[in-house]
């Protein structure tokens, strides 16, 4: 893979905007094959050289889906999460899973960086916006989820795992899904501890906790709880499902395809692709190819294959 210098990348991108129309192919061929660290350097150099923000130029020159995927990809991961989280609070509905997704699939450090980026960009904290824009049981769950700074060690306390599995089972049996202890366990325990607790839950009580949380398929709070569990314990399965529903045009998660591809391209896309292939009879590339067109499709496919080159 030929590597241009940062200066050359900037020149090429500038050329892509020049004249009538835009050379989207050139934009894809450059940006899709750069890491977030490289893109950061390109943005800085572009601003120094041309006195303009690359993102603003992209915004001017591109349209809709393609623009969104390129702009999201060009953002630094922390800024991207901050942007997506802010969007999610502004247009929050009880079926919106983006906040859970960001709070639970990122590492403690990544979530912290996102919160710092949020301060810088929006002049408020993520917590205060989430608290202000959500209500009821959703607020009770979401605020702790975004506020937490989970311990990231592998140590597990089996006695605690047993007692907390019992508490979860008890509350779920009583249909007290919004109980303080359910929220406490899911929002404060480390991921390793939660995994141990839920493994014990399955062994002791026979079902996966998410099966027990499916009693009412229309209950949106239960859906958020299930998403929380999945994001914390099996993020690749969570993302596979989001992609599958988005590609089959089911559900209301607009922009899910763009969001998942841009946020996971540098993280665990390979595992998500394997999961997708296992679960569906086609590869993710194939499914994206059938569902999207043009430059949007090209950019998505380039990102989905990002780590493979």
């Amino acid at each position, binding site marked *: 893979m030929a590597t241009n210098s940062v200066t050359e990348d900037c020149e090429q991108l500038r050329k892509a905007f020049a004249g009538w129309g835009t050379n989207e192919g050139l934009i894809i061929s450059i940006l899709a094959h750069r890491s977030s660290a490289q893109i950061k350097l390109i943005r800085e150099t572009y601003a120094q050289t041309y006195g303009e923000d690359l993102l603003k130029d992209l915004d001017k020159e591109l349209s809709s889906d393609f623009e969104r995927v390129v702009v999201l990809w060009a953002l630094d991961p922390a800024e991207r999460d901050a942007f997506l989280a802010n969007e999610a609070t502004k247009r929050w509905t009880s079926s919106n899973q983006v906040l859970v997704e960001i709070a639970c699939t990122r590492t403690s450090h990544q979530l*912290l960086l996102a*919160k710092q980026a949020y*301060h810088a960009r929006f*002049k*408020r*904290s993520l*917590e*205060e916006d989430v*608290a*202000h824009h959500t209500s009821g049981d959703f*607020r009770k769950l979401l*605020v*702790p989820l975004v*506020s*937490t*700074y*989970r*311990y*990231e*060690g592998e*140590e597990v306390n089996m006695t605690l795992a047993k007692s907390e599995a019992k508490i979860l089972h008890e509350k779920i049996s009583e249909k007290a899904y919004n109980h*303080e202890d359910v929220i*406490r366990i899911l*929002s*404060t*325990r*480390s991921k390793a501890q939660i995994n141990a607790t839920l493994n014990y839950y399955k062994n002791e009580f026979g079902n996966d906790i998410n099966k027990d949380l499916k009693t009412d398929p229309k209950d949106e709070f239960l859906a958020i709880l299930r998403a929380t569990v999945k994001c914390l314990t099996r993020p690749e399965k969570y993302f596979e499902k989001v992609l599958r529903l988005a590609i089959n045009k089911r559900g209301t998660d607009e922009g899910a395809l763009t969001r998942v591809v841009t946020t996971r391209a540098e993280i665990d896309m390979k595992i998500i692709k394997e999961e997708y292939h296992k679960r569906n009879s086609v590869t993710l590339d194939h499914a994206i190819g059938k569902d999207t067109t043009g430059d949007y499709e090209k950019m998505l496919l380039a990102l989905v294959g990002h780590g493979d080159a």
Partner: protein
Amino acid sequence: MALSHEFQALTKSFSGFGVDEKSMISVLGKWHKDDIKSYRKESPHFVQDDRLFEKWVDHHVDFLKHEFLRLKNAVVLWTMHPWERDARLMKEAIDGPQAYGVIIEVACTRSSEELLGARRAYHSLFDHSIEEDIAYRVNDSHRKLLVGLVSSYRYEGTKVHEEIVKSEAKILCAAIKNADRKNPIEDEEVVRIVTTRSKPHLKAIFQHFKGINENLDGESTFDKTMQCLCTPQTYFSKVLDASLRHGADENTKVALTRVIVTRADEEDMKEIKEEYHKQHGVSLSKKIDDEVNGNFKDFLLTLIARGE
């Protein structure tokens, strides 16, 4: 022959705050065993045992243990990295008889980055997050507030939205007025505002209270939280004064070391001293000089004189 003023000096150096090492050395060092025997007969710190000897009153030996340890505790705390310091203070507060005041103090008077550092240190020291330990141990109406306070990562800019300040001030005022029927810290909206909004925002809300004569200077958890967030120097001045009063219990006394060591290097030590003087008519240094003994006293006075 031991002189009565020596008895007094020794009794004084065995009571109060810290120990008067110099007196102990100069008096005890030169006494013969008869002098010490006379002292034991006279001193309230000894009792006559049935088997005909004067023995130490048990709880007084315990008391002395605390007093001798004060300098060591202060020095160890002072040399600690602030993150480790705050993490250990919180762990102690969580494990010990529930000292919610200390949790509120640390969570609310530190900057966002300092609190974050403490949370990191807590991970390293105790293999848990602060929030999981507090959520697990606190089972009463304080849980949501305390977990929210230690989890906060407040925006630290000065930008404040007046309309939101006004509407949230109304919410808090209503909760305060209703305090007899419902503890404000059990109100979801109160907890939301107090645990997520920035300090400048909360200070602006606090200004609204002044307008309706609500001083929030009581002892309730809500009052303490608002004081720590909006007027920390007032809060610290009160805590220091309580620690220096005669008859204060250990939990209250231990605040003297904690507050002075944790604030000595912060910009607000100057403000705390000013506030103390305003509230109590004497300087903090004079009060400490009067009430505290020995090397412990000297250490504290040196700390608070820094930057003068």
